[in-house]
């Protein structure tokens, strides 16, 4: 589903590589933790998968597409197969829960009938039924992140990318979010989650890929956050 072949990324105007010589393959339906301290290259990894940037060296394949050869106008097509969740939720403040989720389908031209059917289904899946008409500011952090997950998942993407999705949440709420991501993973969706929350990683016992200063130092199935 995702393959990195000797990928190096150096941002413009910088000397140090944000990712250096990373090779890794993530199969369909896997749940993978991407761990490492801030600045280790986790976010860069996710942004490369999204084709927000191109790799400086090496090749990246996502959902069968060679991103180095993907034309700019085909990037929207790639992103329709990906869902993304961020630490800061990124909801639209003026729109209700329902509108926020429906927005993701409207702007890719889905028919209204489909939107009316799929959005409530997805909101129920993430456990937000009854809150469709709330505004984001009226929701707790955990609920806001559920809206963001619903928005990322509403188009049934092949891959869900999550960049520190529990970074702004307390431990109890985080567990709820992790259960939801696990549930989504069980539908066959590949989940890649960048985090530095050791407790979560240790509890879930999923594949762990560790980055240190842009280098891949560990790739372990059913791993924990650190060796210590």
């Amino acid at each position: 589903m995702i393959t990195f072949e000797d990928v190096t990324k150096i941002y413009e105007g910088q000397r140090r590589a944000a990712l250096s010589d990373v090779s890794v393959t993530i199969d369909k339906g896997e749940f993978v933790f991407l761990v490492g301290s801030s600045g280790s290259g986790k976010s860069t990894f996710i942004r490369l998968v999204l084709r927000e940037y191109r790799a400086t060296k090496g090749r990246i394949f996502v959902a069968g597409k060679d991103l180095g050869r993907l034309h700019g106008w085909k990037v929207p097509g790639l992103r329709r197969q990906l869902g993304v969740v961020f630490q800061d939720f990124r909801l639209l403040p003026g729109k209700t829960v329902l509108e926020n989720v429906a927005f993701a389908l409207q702007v890719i031209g889905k028919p209204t009938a489909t939107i009316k059917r799929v959005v409530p289904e997805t909101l129920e899946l993430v456990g937000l039924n009854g809150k469709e008409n709330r505004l984001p500011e009226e929701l707790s952090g955990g609920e806001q992140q559920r809206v963001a997950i619903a928005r990322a998942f509403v188009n049934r993407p092949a891959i869900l990318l999550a960049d520190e999705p529990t970074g702004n949440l307390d431990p109890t709420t985080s567990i709820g979010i992790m259960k939801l991501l696990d549930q989504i993973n069980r539908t066959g969706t590949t989940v890649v989650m960048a985090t530095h929350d050791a407790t979560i990683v240790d509890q879930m016992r999923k594949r762990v890929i560790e980055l240190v200063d842009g280098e891949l130092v560990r790739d372990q199935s059913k791993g924990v956050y650190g060796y210590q």
Partner: protein
Amino acid sequence: MRHTLREAWSGLRRNLTMTFAVIITMWVSLTLFGGGLLGAQQVELAKGRWYDKIEISVFLCVKASSGRNCEPGQDATDAQKQAIRTALETNSEVETVYYESKADTWEDFKRVYKDSPVLADMSVDLMQDSFRVKLKDPEQYEGVVSAIAGLPGVQAVQDLRQYLNPLFQWLNIAKWATIGLSLWLLLAAALQIATTIKMAAFSRRRELGIMRLVGASNWYIMLPFLIESLVAALVGAALACGSLAAIEKFLIIDRAQPSLKSIEWIGWSHVGLAMLGVVAVGVVLSIVPTVIATRKYLRV
């Protein structure tokens, strides 16, 4: 589509003052530009068929004309015409000689005076035939003029440019002044549109970011902004077209034409052409700055 139109409409309303500013700048600059286009067409019309092709016109004797070399009441004879033609064609300063018959002149006359009562009193017999002469060097006209002026059958020799150049000089200055001024104003309008759209895009940057992430196409993201600037530009262009129509009606048809009948004046077809130019420039000037201004938010 509904989403796109709603976004465009809310964009126009949100930046109401900027929208007005864009419309007014567009209106004034496009009117000036269209005025320049009208002026250019007027110069071409006033030049007539010959101005760009020849330097000297040799008018021949006709029944109604009088001159030192003319038999009173007689047309120049064919022999005289042939002698004049030969004299012109053998002159080393002459490049080309055209003959304009009375019938040709009559066609021109009818075109210029098409709506005038003067036409009723004229006929093809009252027209004057002529030789139109192109010189190798336009500055060297004196030799040719003196060689031809005394020949029998020549009523008058005229250097067309001597009469028309001062007029055209002023017309040309006016034309370039309006077009030059309008270019600066059009630049201002384009910058204004770019700024307006940049502000609109900035105020919606969260939405645009999410649209990009979920895979909305660039076209879909840009369309509301394009419509927004296109509407403002087209309203400005429509006002400019109205102004050009007013110029044609109140300045040219009602004033200029009745007072100066000897030249052909621009008509509605010329105004239509200028309007096309105005609309085309308006469209380009709204699309290009919008594409440039939104590019930053579309970069993948």
